[in-house]
């Protein structure tokens, strides 16, 4: 292939720049609900993500399912339309290019998905599938030349014996071979950027290594640039130059892979790293696990999105009304029935939370008692949360718990990376 060492491309130049990328998906809500509440319900899949990719670099986008990493990958190659923000590929803003203008660019940016089986048409031979992009893009029209190019790329990705496999169907191939075919199909267009979305996750360990080696070899030979999307931190450590850790639509830490693994800064990164199983029975250890699960992205938590689960949380991290509701819910469901004062709290359904407030309408003659009880419960909350409470007051017929407004979170440069955490601001 040609073009890898073309003099026009300076290696330091960013191949891809993503600035403040926002991708929101509308949620279907029933008509009645839409009429009652004017608020637009959207999933904040990607909520302000910025990073850049240098030529010849492998950037890992790492996070749990639902963090938005796949959405970032698909939006970059414009399978999805960004809600706002900019995607600059080879110096050109492609954020809102029309499909017809995108098509020639797609030659230069390809994406590979997790499931090789679903990515291949079962009724198309491997050879035809790999050669198909050449015909779609009108690059090669001569059938014999297509065949020759396909055989070349098959040999390069290790789909051998290539002349035998050429006429096979996907069903005849193993998982590893299918993934090689998918890589070959992407590579035949000689792309500059390859987005690999969980490209090895479905493969057995014994074949995974081979495909990773192929990815590295292709990079060396063609000067490829990769965005490697994965939930597997061990694979990302081995493969990537830099890593971006995502949580609920935000990049919380971004920096060189080696230093992130040596000394993770963000509490979420720290949590992720310590749960990776170590394949050595002598290294069993007690883990400190974050509480609960990733909250849903329709109403992401205020402030730092990780704050309800964070071990190092501060009073300024974004405590809000619903955190109090969660605390109360836990108290009511775990404390034995008939504890004095609990009858004042009522049932959890009688409480509401809105922004930094939580409250309840009370018909009690003496709302002060309820205020006292709420304060007692808050005293048993995590200290950071208790300190974030500005006031617990009776206002007319309501009892209101008011949290302070959180400090503004900004990406901060810490040593050789950027971290989005108040601990470092």
């Amino acid at each position, binding site marked *: 292939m040609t073009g890898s060492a073309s003099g026009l491309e300076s290696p330091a130049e960013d191949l891809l720049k993503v600035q403040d990328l926002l991708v929101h998906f509308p949620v279907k809500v029933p008509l009645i609900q839409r009429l009652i509440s004017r608020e637009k319900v959207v999933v904040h899949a990607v909520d302000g993500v910025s990073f850049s990719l240098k030529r010849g670099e492998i950037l890992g986008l790492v996070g749990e399912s639902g963090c938005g990493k796949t959405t970032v990958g698909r939006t970059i190659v414009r399978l999805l339309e960004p809600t706002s923000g900019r995607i600059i590929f080879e110096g050109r803003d492609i954020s809102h290019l029309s499909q017809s203008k995108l098509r020639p660019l797609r030659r230069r940016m390809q994406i590979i998905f997790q499931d090789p089986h679903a990515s291949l048409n079962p009724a198309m031979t491997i050879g035809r599938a790999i050669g198909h992009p050449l015909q779609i893009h009108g690059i090669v029209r001569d059938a014999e030349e297509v065949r020759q190019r396909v055989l070349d790329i098959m040999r390069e990705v290790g789909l051998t014996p290539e002349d035998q496999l050429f006429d096979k169907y996907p069903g005849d191939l193993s998982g590893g071979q299918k993934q090689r075919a998918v890589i070959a199909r992407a590579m035949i267009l000689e792309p500059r950027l390859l987005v690999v979305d969980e490209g090895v996750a479905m493969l057995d*360990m014994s074949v995974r290594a081979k495909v990773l080696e192929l990815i590295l070899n292709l990079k060396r030979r063609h000067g490829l640039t990769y965005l490697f999307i994965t939930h597997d931190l061990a694979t990302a*450590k081995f493969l990537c130059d830099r890593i971006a850790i995502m949580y609920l639509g935000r990049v919380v830490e971004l920096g060189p892979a080696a230093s992130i693994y040596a000394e993770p800064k963000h509490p979420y990164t720290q949590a992720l790293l310590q749960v990776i199983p*170590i394949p050595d029975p002598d290294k069993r250890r007690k883990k400190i696990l974050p509480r609960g699960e990733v909250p849903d992205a329709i109403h992401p938590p205020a402030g730092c999105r990780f704050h309800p689960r964070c071990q190092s949380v501060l009073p300024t991290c974004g405590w809000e009304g619903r955190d109090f509701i969660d605390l109360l819910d836990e108290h009511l469901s775990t404390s034995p029935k008939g504890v004095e004062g609990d009858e004042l709290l009522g049932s959890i359904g009688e409480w509401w939370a809105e922004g930094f407030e939580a409250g309840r309408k009370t018909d009690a003659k003496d709302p002060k008692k309820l205020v006292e009880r709420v304060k007692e419960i808050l005293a048993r909350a995590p200290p950071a949360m208790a300190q974030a409470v500005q006031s617990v007051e009776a206002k007319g017929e309501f009892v209101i718990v008011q949290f302070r407004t959180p400090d503004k979170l900004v990406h901060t440069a810490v040593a050789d990376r950027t971290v989005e955490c108040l601990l470092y601001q």
Partner: protein
Amino acid sequence: MHYKTRRGEAHALDEISLEIAQGETLGVVGETGSGKSTLAKAVLGVLPPNATVSGQIIYHGSDLTHLNDDTLRRIRGKEIALIFQDPMTRLNPLMTIEDHFLEEIQAHESISVEEARSRAREALVSMGIHESRIRNYPHEFSGGMRQRIMIALALVLKPFLLVADEPTTSLDVIVESQILEILQDLRRVYKMSLLLITHNLGIVAEVCDRVAVLYAGKLAELGPVRDIFHRPIHPYTRALLSSVISLETKELHSIEGSPPDLLIPPSGCRFHPRCPYAQSICKENVPPLVEYRPGHFAACHFGDTFL
């Protein structure tokens, strides 16, 4: 254990002998198609009709393969429970979580609905799910919660043996850790035995007492977890261990070739076409399972040289 298929008989499992003690966790590892899941299904007697089983599955002294369906049904669920990789294959989308529990409990025990309800709530709370959610439907829960519900369902009757087939594979790493911790706690509290089927050797190292390595339906190696990880004998086990990508990985290793077609398994040692140490004897004779150290078995003609 053979499957009859349209292309002939597939030897999904071939002369596997395993024991699992009370309170023990036995890990079963191997590549896709090694027969791991078939083993789980065979233990529970839930294989598809085209499967034929020979040999015995002795549970508390009686052979499960000879029990009639009624007796087997009584044991299944109550004494031996199974959890799968994908919770949605076990949970009925049209039933509330409470209905699932009631069905399960009342199939095995004649207790009042009230009592069954309170046991259901208890089981759910023990998995960290709020009891107010018991009337919800499966789709109203996250993946991790569904998996915990499935575990709660499997454990509500306090089985002696839990067979877990890739119980955390579809989950995120943090939730995976949470689930594994729950399973270990239960094992300690109830002295439950756990047959853990997984392809993740990291998990095996963290939770198992003993490990069985399957290759193409044959038992390649079996032994205490420390021996398997620190002093593996079978070349397949060694290759499998070195292919693991962990945080300490500096270079990649893979196993050449791919697992064989079980309709036409290789002669002799089934691993010989991929084995770097294979000699002519490996093609000709099936290696016996030999005990090289106390409790540490391997099926390799050259086991002595790998000690």
